[in-house]
């Protein structure tokens, strides 16, 4: 059955029609919010008065953000969390990927799946799980630490008494970092496992014939070959770490915790808008955060560029 000519798609229009689902969605959910927040960052706005209530204030919002103690505090929290949760992810994921690659044959997919599970688990489930794990009096983590304290030598390293993980400002950050590490280490393992498959086996064979040991093969073949993937993984960690929102948000009940100790910049600017009613400053802060993310991504790129390349 043929469509009448009037209904047929002219060939020159076809690409645009086929592209339009993405372009339209991207325009609505990608471009529009971006442009709108950039516009808002230069306005003072009492949101409940309607869109007409915006007043142009120039760079006031940026000036306010840069003088705001809590903004800096949130940036420090974010940097701490990004480092402490991000670096171990890669330090653990690379050896773990090598271990899984070399030691598991038939069980491999199952093992990788187990590590990948946290990444695809719903945040609400994670919230329930970890709130009970971190519970001061009844939580498994404190029960475990208590048991360790009974072991003669190890006991010295374990603090006496139950730790108030989510209530005490000194312990919120480590608690959040643990959850973030747990959630994303499997994702990185998958990345590195994929990269390991691309390293030619004859390299290892040649090295072995030259008498290179297991460690030497790891440091002189595996690690250099993984470099592009490390760059990719670290970039994702930098971006993800600086935009950290979900895990601290759920673990601190959306408030950032005692002394705002778990309040990342993303949480703070969300609260600026929806709790403190200051959409202008919140937008300005989000653009300042964008600048930080862009700068650090660029630095990562510099750090991982191939040796001898210019620029």
């Amino acid at each position, binding site marked *: 059955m043929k469509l009448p000519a009037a209904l047929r798609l002219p060939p020159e229009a076809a690409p645009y029609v086929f592209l339009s689902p993405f372009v339209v969605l991207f325009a609505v*959910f990608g471009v529009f919010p971006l442009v709108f927040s950039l516009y808002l960052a230069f306005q003072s706005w*009492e949101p*409940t008065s*309607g869109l007409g*209530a915006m007043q142009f204030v120039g760079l006031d919002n940026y000036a306010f953000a840069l003088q705001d103690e809590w903004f800096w505090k949130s940036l420090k929290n974010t940097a701490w969390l990004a480092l402490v949760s991000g670096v171990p992810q890669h330090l653990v994921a690379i050896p773990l990927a090598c271990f899984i690659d070399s030691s598991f044959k038939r069980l491999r997919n199952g093992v990788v799946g187990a590590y990948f599970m946290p990444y695809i688990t719903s945040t609400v489930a994670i919230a329930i799980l970890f709130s009970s794990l971190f519970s001061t009096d009844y939580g498994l983590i404190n029960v475990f630490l208590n048991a360790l304290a009974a072991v003669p030598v190890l006991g010295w390293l374990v603090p006496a008494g139950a730790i108030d993980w989510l209530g005490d400002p000194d312990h919120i950050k480590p608690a959040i970092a643990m959850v973030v590490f747990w959630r994303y280490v499997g994702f990185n393992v998958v990345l590195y496992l994929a990269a390991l498959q691309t390293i030619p086996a004859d390299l290892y064979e040649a090295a072995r014939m030259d008498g290179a040991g297991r460690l030497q093969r790891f440091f002189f073949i595996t690690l250099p070959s993984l470099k592009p993937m490390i760059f990719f993984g670290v970039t994702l960690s930098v971006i993800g770490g600086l935009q950290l929102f979900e895990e601290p948000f759920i673990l601190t009940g959306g408030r950032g915790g005692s002394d705002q100790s778990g309040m990342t910049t993303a949480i703070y600017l969300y609260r600026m808008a929806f709790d403190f009613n200051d959409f202008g400053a919140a937008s300005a802060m989000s653009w300042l955060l964008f600048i930080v993310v862009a700068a650090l991504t660029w630095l990562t790129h510099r750090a991982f560029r191939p040796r001898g390349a210019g620029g």
Partner: protein
Amino acid sequence: MRAADRSIGARPSAVALGLLLFGAAAAPVSATAQQTLIVAAYPAVDEIVRAAVPQWKALHPTVDIQVISRQFADHHTAMTTALSTRSHLPDVMALEVGYVGRFAQGGGLQNLAAPPYDIARFQARWVPYAYQQATNRRGEVVAAPTDIGPGTLLYRHDVLARAGVGEAELTRSWDSYVAAGARVKAATGAYLLAHARDMKDIVIRTGIQPGEGLYFDQQSNVLVTSPRFVRAFELARQVRRQKLDAKVGAWSNEWSEGFRRGTIATQMSGAWLAGHLNNWLAPDTKGLWRAAQLPEGAFAAYGGTFFAIPRGAPAGHKALAWQFIQLMTLDRAVQLAAFRQQDAFPALVETYDDPFFEQPIDFLGGQAARVGWRAASRRIAAVDVHKQDAFASEVIDTELDKVLDRGKDIATALADAQRLLQQRAHR
């Protein structure tokens, strides 16, 4: 009528804002045919509205009521977004008192003091503070009160009896309250209260001068170094030093567990908490609780619900919306039904002679506690709202934590808070 517990699920974004902008406009309404009035509300208030529909239909057979119900936090976020984009606005919105203060600063809600509404003619019929709470500095009244949350001190009669502590000792003064707590702790091991913060929250509300808000005065001067803050912090520190608070936040698992096991002896809250304790928090403790006035003659409100008309709502519906609000807030039968069924303490004063107030409450050991709450509701004073109040309360809580947990000096803590708030006061 309920404390603002923040839910995990509510997480709006700029995307949602964008979506609303692209959303379709409401369909035009014809005046002759069957009309529908849209009322947006949150749990308990939505039930109250639904229960009043038969009475509304008797008066207006051609006007249906459609209730749009969302969870507490979702509802207020949706109302904020609807007001800011002026789309998908309901004809009537229920608002919790904290949001009334916030929204009253802007111009999104219809001024009910102006004709044809002239809300001032009904002013005397509502509890004074509730009406004041909906009035902004421009003299506009942006909402009508429907229920209120008179503050009360709930205490475990059995635990106090074991320590030989009477109600008078608990409420005579704040110092006496703390001293009673020490005896309760020594005799029974139970904590006096859930968190020292709860006590600070009431003490900073006592002795507010006319024209002052909680944290700012009308000229946006910061008030947090005033004596009421110093006293509140000192009392809270005393409580913590004597280990009289359980260090648990409201609505946490440890909090409800403390009530169930009787390890928390008293709780300052709205009268509605007795209903929550009875229904789900600690139903097995029925008969063991009593209600008293807050210590040292303090009177405070915990929550409260209002109805408002958005300025951007369809003009043709506003007269009907106003009639609906009058039914909900000024009709004796509707107000009392909400009180009986949903524990919504009436804002309408003329209901106060109803025999229901004198009825004994089983959960409180047969005490006629509503009489005390009725007396309290008339004595609560309205507090001026400032747009930075939400931020200020966060800052004060943080500084209190530092005083309690890290031994920070009170004067330094309050001075730090003052400095941080001054930076924001005029934004």
